[in-house]
């Protein structure tokens, strides 16, 4: 039975790309309001894991339950889960032929059937929250990377999701733009949003994460609260990984 406090519950989940075993026996229970940071070496399956949660990738074995809805072949369930989860990508993936505002109101109008002026009002509110209301009429190609990523966050928030998924949101950004995006994410965390972030920003992890998950070779190797995770990692692969990214 699903715990009513669970936002995401993954049980014995396996994922294959053809014959390649990308995720192996994943068990994960994420409570509502919890902030999770996932890290691990390149190719360890971090993106695959969070992309399975909103069915951008399909898992083959085990079950994924999001907010009480089982992620199976039922298209209604998939739609339901996608309405409740927002996703932010490494490369922003904004729609370049629409203005910032149009990017934000597209899904609320088409999926939530919101009226245009209401969708616009909400979008402007969220653009103000990510501190770029003045860019609403510009096109994505006219913004800096950091601004584009903040638009992408606002666009996802416009759907009023219960869970936000972030896949390395800052790794395509120049260093001086990273903090402007992280600030927005920290603000979101303080508001109580359930967040699952793939990121190597360890400062961010320490500041907001309730739990840090380390993956390697398609498996969850270790999970612990940030203090414990960083100061006293149990597994030697975790130690080696932390040694690499914190060592210099």
């Amino acid at each position, binding site marked *: 039975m699903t715990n009513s406090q669970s936002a995401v519950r993954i049980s014995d989940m396996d994922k294959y790309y053809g014959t390649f075993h990308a995720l192996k026996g994943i068990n994960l229970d994420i409570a509502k309001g919890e902030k999770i940071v996932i890290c691990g070496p390149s190719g360890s399956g971090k993106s695959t894991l969070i992309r399975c949660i909103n069915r951008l990738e399909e898992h083959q074995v085990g079950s994924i339950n999001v907010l009480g809805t089982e992620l199976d072949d039922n298209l209604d369930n998939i739609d339901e889960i996608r309405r409740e989860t927002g996703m932010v990508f490494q*490369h922003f993936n904004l729609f370049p032929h629409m203005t910032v505002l149009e990017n934000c109101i597209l899904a609320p109008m088409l999926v939530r059937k919101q009226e245009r002026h209401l969708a616009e009002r909400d979008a402007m509110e969220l653009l103000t929250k990510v501190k770029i209301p003045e860019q609403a009429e510009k096109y994505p*190609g006219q913004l800096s990377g950091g601004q584009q990523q903040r638009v992408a966050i606002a666009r996802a928030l416009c759907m009023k999701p219960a869970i936000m998924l972030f896949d390395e949101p800052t790794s395509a950004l120049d260093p001086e733009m990273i903090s402007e995006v992280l600030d927005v994410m920290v603000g979101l965390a303080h508001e109580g949003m359930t967040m699952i972030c793939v990121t190597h920003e360890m400062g961010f992890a320490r500041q907001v994460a309730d739990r840090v998950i380390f993956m390697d070779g398609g498996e969850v190797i270790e999970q612990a609260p940030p203090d414990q995770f960083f100061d006293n990692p149990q597994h030697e692969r975790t130690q080696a990984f932390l040694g690499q990214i914190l060592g210099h």
Partner: protein
Amino acid sequence: MLALLKQKSYRDRTLQTLFVGGLAVMLVIFVMTARTNLEAQGMTSGFDFLERATGWGVSFSLIDFSTSDSYLKVIWVGLLNSLFLGVISMSFATIIGIAIGIMRVSGNKMAELIGTIYVEVFRNLPLLLQAFFWYAILTTLPKPRDAYDIGGIAFLSGRGVYLPGLNVSGLSVFLSAIGLVIAFAVWLNLTTSRRFAKMMPKEKTARARSIWLAWGFAACVVMAMGRIPDTPLLNLPYLKGLNFREGIRVSPELLTCIVAISIYGGAYIGEIVRAGFNAVSNGQKEAGFALGLTPWQIFTRIRLPLAIRAVMPMLINQYVWLFKATTIGIAVGFVDFFMVISTSINQSGQTLELIAILMGGFLCINYTMAFALNRVNDAIKLKGTQARG
């Protein structure tokens, strides 16, 4: 002086002036030589013949034409026919091309196979051959008496295809078509121009609606005024004796040209559209799915608009090129611009003048078309730099 030459804008302008000047000098020399040579052979040159009556008729004309009308008018008839053929076949080629392009990226094996076969067959056979093929098929359709009946309102026969029409004057149809183009231009300006970027979307939608309503109203009024008296509005073809009466007859010659160019052009446009879809990154599609959009919404709102923008310059080239393909009319006997000119040359002997008119006509049309389409491209193309996906 040397310093001036190093300045880019100045240098560009100087080079252009020299180039255009050189061309003009060459042209003048060419015309003068041709004139003296022709006069030596006892032939008159100049454009006076344009006023003369032709003495021969044409089998298809959008405007009234008789054998006593002038060469100028027959050339105008040919030009209109070419434009007519071009607009119709390019529209069909676009529809076919988009359908074929979509089939080839659909991911459905059967659709992909059909699309591939279509493109490979129709792109690789010469247009002329295809025109002969369709002409052979269309002229061997049954006689009018045994024509294929399509719902009692349209008929397919070896004498042509008969379609229902409206009993209105050609002029009113023409004016309505022009109105449509103007309405489209105004609408495009409204939706894409920076000048209206600040306008409230609600007002924008309202204005867009009034543009189309205005056009619809104007078209209805123009058509009503152009009504041919004492006839029903709808003009249905019917069989009387050995042939059809009323309706619009599309001759096998015109139909051949339309079918051949549409199908041939559709293959090329299909390839361009496919390239456009492949140029749209997967990321936009995934973002759409993550937001909960349906595949159809992603297709119509994101992938198709991005694909069209990616290949707009290629499409413009293709349209210019397709318009030149309307000259196959001469192969099956459709009186297009090229055929009218070539008949006029035979009848009047004014070769150089007529060829100059032919070239001038094509240059004008293709420049105008490329110019208009480039404005459309400017209006819809992606703003800013796209390096960051």
